[in-house]
């Protein structure tokens, strides 16, 4: 009852303050004059009642600044609260869920199916699959990616996971290291991704034959069948375009906005960039787990291909028949 009375009192007094929306430009000027007229009227009717003035203090209302600083004239910056709720709410929860569930799904898949084995006997004849530079670019990207993923996840979830274990001081040390490493390795990663895009894009162009792979995907993934494909199959192309190219671009641009706050970005820009970066990076990491699995323990011979650049002819025939034909012809 008491609370209800309080509620009403406060509502009557205050709904008027917060009713006004923030305005900009010319409209704001005329509105400001209107408000000051209102205020003068109000003062005669109800001395000391400032409601018309405070309407301009509504969240994100712009007030001409008297002190230096890009946003010195903003009294209340409301989007910060929105940012906090998105970041601490769905992004943390769904992101955390993703990072826990994806490895579990992969582990279960591995336990049920085991790795994709070669069906035929290795021929002993080796075919060059990746050039020296392709491997350099791939591994530079991979290493910088893992460093960024680990430091990023550490900074994002460390508060919940690591502080209870290693304490505030210990974690602060890790976080400071992570932040600096993340800031420096980030631009390097963008460079690597750009190189990778230039180097791998042509072979990753979508071809009609790739639909065959998509149709037979369940059989191919469980090792029960094969689908003809070029140098890269549909899944690899999906990872390239959706992961490396698209997520790389999204995470890269938002990352640069956050990494270089030297260009007078506003807090609002940074908040959006932060959410985009977080969501993009978490999706990127989840997808990369699939790629890492298929490239290492998931497929026999795949890791050696990227390690040494050479694959066995049988492997090439079973996984990338069309590519082998091209190479041979």
């Amino acid at each position: 009852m008491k609370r209800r009375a309080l509620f009403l009192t406060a509502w009557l007094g205050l709904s008027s303050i917060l009713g006004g929306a923030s305005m900009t430009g010319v409209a704001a000027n005329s509105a400001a004059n209107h408000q000051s007229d209102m205020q003068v009227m109000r003062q005669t009717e109800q001395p000391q009642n400032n409601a018309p003035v405070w309407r301009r203090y509504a969240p994100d209302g712009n007030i001409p600044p008297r002190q230096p600083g890009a946003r010195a004239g903003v009294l209340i910056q409301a989007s910060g609260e929105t940012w906090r709720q998105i970041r601490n709410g769905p992004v943390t929860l769904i992101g955390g869920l993703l990072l826990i569930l994806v490895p579990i799904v992969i582990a279960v898949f591995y336990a049920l199916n085991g790795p994709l084995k070669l069906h035929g006997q290795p021929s002993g004849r080796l075919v060059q699959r990746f050039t020296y530079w392709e491997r350099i670019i791939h591994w530079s990207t991979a290493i910088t990616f893992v460093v960024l993923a680990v430091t990023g996840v550490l900074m994002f979830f460390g508060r919940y996971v690591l502080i209870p274990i290693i304490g505030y001081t210990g974690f602060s040390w890790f976080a400071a290291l992570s932040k600096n490493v993340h800031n420096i390795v980030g631009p390097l990663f963008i460079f690597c991704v750009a190189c990778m895009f230039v180097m791998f894009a042509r072979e990753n162009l979508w071809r009609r034959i790739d639909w065959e792979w998509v149709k037979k995907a369940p059989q191919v993934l469980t090792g029960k069948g094969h689908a003809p494909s070029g140098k890269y199959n549909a899944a690899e192309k999906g990872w390239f375009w959706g992961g490396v190219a698209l997520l790389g671009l999204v995470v890269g641009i938002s990352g640069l906005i956050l990494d270089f706050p030297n260009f007078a970005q506003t807090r609002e820009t940074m908040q959006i960039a932060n959410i985009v970066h977080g969501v993009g990076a978490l999706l990127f990491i989840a997808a990369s787990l699939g790629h890492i699995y298929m490239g290492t323990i998931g497929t026999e011979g795949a890791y050696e291909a990227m390690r040494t650049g050479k694959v066995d002819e049988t492997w090439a025939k079973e996984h990338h028949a069309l590519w082998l034909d091209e190479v041979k012809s």
Partner: protein
Amino acid sequence: MARMKFLCDAERCIECNGCVTACKNEHEVPWGINRRRVVTVNDGQEGAEKSMSVACMHCSDAPCMAVCPVDCFYKTDDGVVLHDKDLCIGCGYCFYACPFGAPQFPASNASTPGGKSSDWFGARGKMDKCTFCAGGPEENGSDAEFEKYGRNRFVRRQIAGCVQKCVRPKHCSVVTATCSQIYIASAYWFAAKARKCGAGAPPMASLITMSARRSNSREADACVDSATCRGYVGGLR
């Protein structure tokens, strides 16, 4: 239990910036940082010009505290939100989240007189904000505390510097409430939190009740009530 809140009466603030100067002088804060600032609306319009002094509002539900990745914030018994600069990694998340722009970072090292150009990628050192003149986790009154957080006036039986130096004190600029009452720091504090209650709800009222519920004490309820009755909420009477 005392609860510390800043309350600025815009009816009496004359925008002398005394609180800003007092704060800056008291804590010898680095270049580029003003822990307190004065915002003026309707500049030069008779009867409508109002000023208000803003700094950290020591929120009950502090967004900075919620987003800090290293959890370096803490709240004292008096409701003062403090932070530990030894833990701070300077990520700036508190700055994104704060409705009042309270957390600030030193200007680029290179631009300060005698500063080193050792900052990477716009990294600007550790966050600095209003401490209610309550120092920090270092030993009370020590040099280390002064260097990191500014003067600890509480330990010297003094009230916050801005309050002390206000030229039109009491019912005027910045007032500390130390009695067993919460002075609801003016309306705008809650405005930013309005979204939480949904679009339909009258923002302020729900927020006050929410804040009382959140602090989970009967005392808080009573204080909110008294503050409302006295018309402190929103600077309205």
